[in-house]
Structure formats: structure tokens, C-alpha cells
């Protein structure tokens, strides 16, 4: 008798805290979902994740907890999710680094194209080509001429090997067929500080970090790396308008699940992502970041899968030509 009551108590106590066993897709999600961000808390990717996680959690009726698993350019967090149970309770939100690390790292602990199922694209944050406020060239054309004429003098800052600012710089240099002096920093924060202080000449960074500085007149912008002008920076031309077609880079973000997640769960997650991307608060915050939610067609498994494989193919030659690897 006593054993039974103890057992009942234990069962009751544990049952309130969590649920064990494979949750049927029908009652998914039955407990909080963990969304892994492969970067430290407070960065732009973390911000995007928290915004989306909150909105998706509201829609799913379960909290989505953001877990920061930083390290090794995002590959540690991605590796963690690749090995996680495909039960829909561990997801990954990663940016363009998902595609570039496939080339930047010669030995990855996971197979980028085959280790994940896809939920959908979230957003594509544009980048801007900027320079210190008192830098001579006035527009992109004169900048290119100036850079070619003074290639020993112009310094280009980036946020370290594999960072978006590094990729953007590599693409710029390959487009204008000129190699500039690259000054690497640990993260965009210190790089931006030195740009503001006039210690370096130019850099390329996402609108999240540059919009306010450009509007405040602390740095000058030559072009955005997008097809259309950015809504928050209407006066800045696109690279194509300014005379450098094909100079397009965006920091796109996607949500992934471990390979083997059931189609029903994936469908639920995709639907929830689509709802979240229509949330007025998310749209407004994204606009503040200088970006917009992905379209309904992109915020799908196929949309993300196509983006990932095309981006892998696109960056591999650029990275290989530069001969830069992160390991």
C-alpha cells in the first residue's frame, strides 16, 4: 500500500515538471521548445531570434526558449542541433554563416546539406558599404577609382575571418579587381569604433549597425548591397544603381530542425513561422533593423533549402579564391 502511494506521488511530482516519451505530432508542442542561436546573447542574430521566437511561441501556445550556444563561427551550435533528437523540441536559427562555413571549415562535424530539415527563411538583412565621414570619395564610382589609385593606402576593416563583413569585403575586392589592406577586428563593434574614430577608411556592415550612424552623419554610405533600396535609408543607392552590378550580399536567417523531424511537426513550425512573420510587432522591429520579414514563398522549407544550396555554391569560389579558411 505504502509503496503505491509513494509511487503515485513520484509520478505526480515528475509529471508536473515534464513529459517523457515521444510526443505525438498531434499534441505537438506539449512542452517548451528550445531554439539554439549559435552566437552569444546580445548580437544581431540573437535579437532576430528572440523576436521570432516570442511571436512563434505565442502562436504555438508554448514558450520557445532561446539558448545561446556560441563558438567557432556558429558551427558548434549548428553541430549541437544536427545531433539533437529530431522531435521538434530543438531548433536552430542560423544566418548566412550556415552556407559559408561549409567552405570556410574544411572539417565540419556535420554535413551542411544533409544534416537538417528546413522550416523556412526568416529575413534577409541588407548590408551597406560605408566609410569614415571625412573619406575623400563622394560616391561609389569615385570610391572605386580612388581605391584602385591608392590601393596601398586604403584600409578596409572587417569583423574577423568568415564574418559577413569579411565576405562582403572579399566580394567587393573581387568585383573591383583590387586588393586593399584588410584590418580584422573581433566583431563589428570594435571595427565600427575605429571607423567612427577615423582609424580605418571603410568597411561593410549590416544595416542593423550602420543605419543610425549614417543618419547621424557619423559615417558616409556609398551603397546598399540589395536589389532594391532599403526603406530606412531611402537616399542610399543600391550597388547596381551606383554602378557596381552583382555586388549583392545579405545576411539571411533561416530556421532548421534536426534531420528526421516528422513532416507534421515541420508543417506546424512553418505555419507558425509564417504567422509570426505577419505579426505587426515583428514587422515593425524588423523595419527598425532595416529589414523586412521573408515572403510567404521564402518562409517555407523549399525556400530555405534553395537559398542554402545556392548560397553555398555562390560563396565557395569567392572563399577559395581568397584562400582564407577558419580552421
Amino acid at each position, binding site marked *: 500500500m505504502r509503496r503505491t502511494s509513494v509511487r503515485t506521488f513520484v509520478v505526480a511530482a515528475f509529471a508536473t515538471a515534464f513529459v517523457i516519451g515521444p510526443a505525438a505530432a498531434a499534441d505537438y508542442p506539449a512542452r517548451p521548445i528550445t531554439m539554439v542561436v549559435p552566437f552569444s546573447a546580445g548580437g544581431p542574430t540573437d535579437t532576430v531570434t528572440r523576436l521570432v521566437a516570442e511571436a512563434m511561441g505565442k502562436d504555438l501556445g508554448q514558450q520557445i*526558449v532561446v*539558448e545561446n550556444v556560441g563558438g567557432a563561427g556558429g558551427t558548434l551550435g549548428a553541430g549541437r542541433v544536427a545531433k539533437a533528437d529530431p522531435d521538434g523540441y530543438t531548433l536552430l536559427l542560423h544566418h548566412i554563416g550556415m552556407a559559408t562555413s561549409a567552405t570556410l571549415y574544411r572539417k565540419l562535424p556535420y554535413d551542411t546539406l544533409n544534416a537538417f530539415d528546413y522550416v523556412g527563411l526568416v529575413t534577409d538583412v541588407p548590408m551597406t558599404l560605408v566609410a569614415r565621414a571625412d573619406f575623400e570619395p563622394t560616391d561609389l564610382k569615385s570610391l572605386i577609382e580612388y581605391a584602385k589609385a591608392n590601393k596601398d593606402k586604403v584600409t578596409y576593416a572587417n569583423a574577423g575571418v568568415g564574418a559577413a563583413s569579411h565576405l562582403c569585403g572579399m566580394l567587393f575586392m573581387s568585383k573591383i579587381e583590387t586588393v586593399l589592406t584588410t584590418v580584422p577586428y573581433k566583431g563589428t563593434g570594435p571595427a565600427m569604433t575605429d571607423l567612427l574614430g577615423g582609424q580605418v577608411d571603410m568597411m561593410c556592415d549590416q544595416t542593423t549597425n550602420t543605419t543610425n550612424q549614417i543618419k547621424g552623419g557619423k559615417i558616409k554610405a556609398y551603397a546598399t548591397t540589395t536589389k532594391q533600396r532599403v526603406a530606412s535609408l531611402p537616399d542610399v543607392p543600391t550597388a547596381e544603381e551606383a554602378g557596381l552590378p552583382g555586388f549583392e550580399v545579405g545576411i539571411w536567417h533561416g530556421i532548421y530542425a534536426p534531420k528526421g523531424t516528422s513532416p507534421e511537426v515541420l508543417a506546424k513550425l512553418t505555419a507558425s513561422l509564417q504567422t509570426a512573420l505577419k505579426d505587426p510587432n515583428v514587422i515593425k522591429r524588423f523595419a527598425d533593423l532595416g529589414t523586412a520579414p521573408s515572403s510567404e514563398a521564402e518562409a517555407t522549407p523549399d525556400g530555405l533549402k534553395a537559398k542554402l544550396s545556392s548560397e553555398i555554391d555562390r560563396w565557395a569560389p569567392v572563399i577559395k579564391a581568397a584562400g582564407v579558411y577558419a580552421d
Partner: protein
Amino acid sequence: MKVDTREIACGAIFIAIAAAFAIAALDLPMGSALRMGPGYFPMALALILAALGLIIVIKGLGRAPSPIGGVPWRGLLFILLAPLVFGLTVRGLGLAPSMALVAAIATLASARAGMKLAAAMTLGLTLFCVLVFSYGLGLPYALFGPWSAPFLPGV
């Protein structure tokens, strides 16, 4: 001749650390003083450290020995074991059992701790941590992981 083993050991450790870094730095491109490669700065530091270690050894050769004192071997073993066990089990067993293990191992590090104290500490600390970290702060870690599942009553 008087020899201060403590000083010699200290210098030797510095030299060993310097050697380890220097050997690893050999694989890295050195560059030059004007265009430093990734290996330049660590190699320079390793050489400085080795020199410091050498001076400490030499100074220790002519000095009276100083006592090092006892080593709590039991404590050393258990205390160093606790973080390892936590790291190895936190994902598999989950936060709660893993914390219980750490608390038990840590308590037993003391030569004066008996089983009774260990049990009490384990229970108390685990309860406190679960309340504070899982419920209070909402840390995103599962209280019980996949390895714990077979031991739990099914629902």
C-alpha cells in the same frame, strides 16, 4: 648545496608551459617583426616565459628549502572530479540528477563528511538549484535528460 625545491618546481613549470606553447607555435607561420604571422607573438612570449623560469630556477639553487605543506589528496580527487562529472552528464541525465551528483561528490571531498551529510547536502542543494535556476530563472535546460528516462515512472 642548499636547494629550494619549491622555487625549482615553480621555474620548471614555467619552462614547461613555455616549451609547450613554443612547440605548438612552431607549426604556425612566424612572419617577421614588421609583418607578424600568427606564431610570432606567442613565440616571443614563450621565450620570455622560459627566461623567467630559468632565472627562478637559478635563484632557487642557492636558497634554503621552504616547506610546501600537505596535499589533501582526497579533496583534490573529488573536487576536480565534480565539474567533469557535471559536464559529462548534464545533457544526458538532465540538470537535476547532474546537480545531485556534483553536490554528492563535492560533499564527499571533505575528509569529515559522512554519508548522512552527503545525502542531506545532495537533497537540499538539488532542491534549491532546481527552484532557483529552473523555475526562478527559467534556464533552458531539461531537468531530466534522455539517459534518465528509463529510471523514471512512465506516464
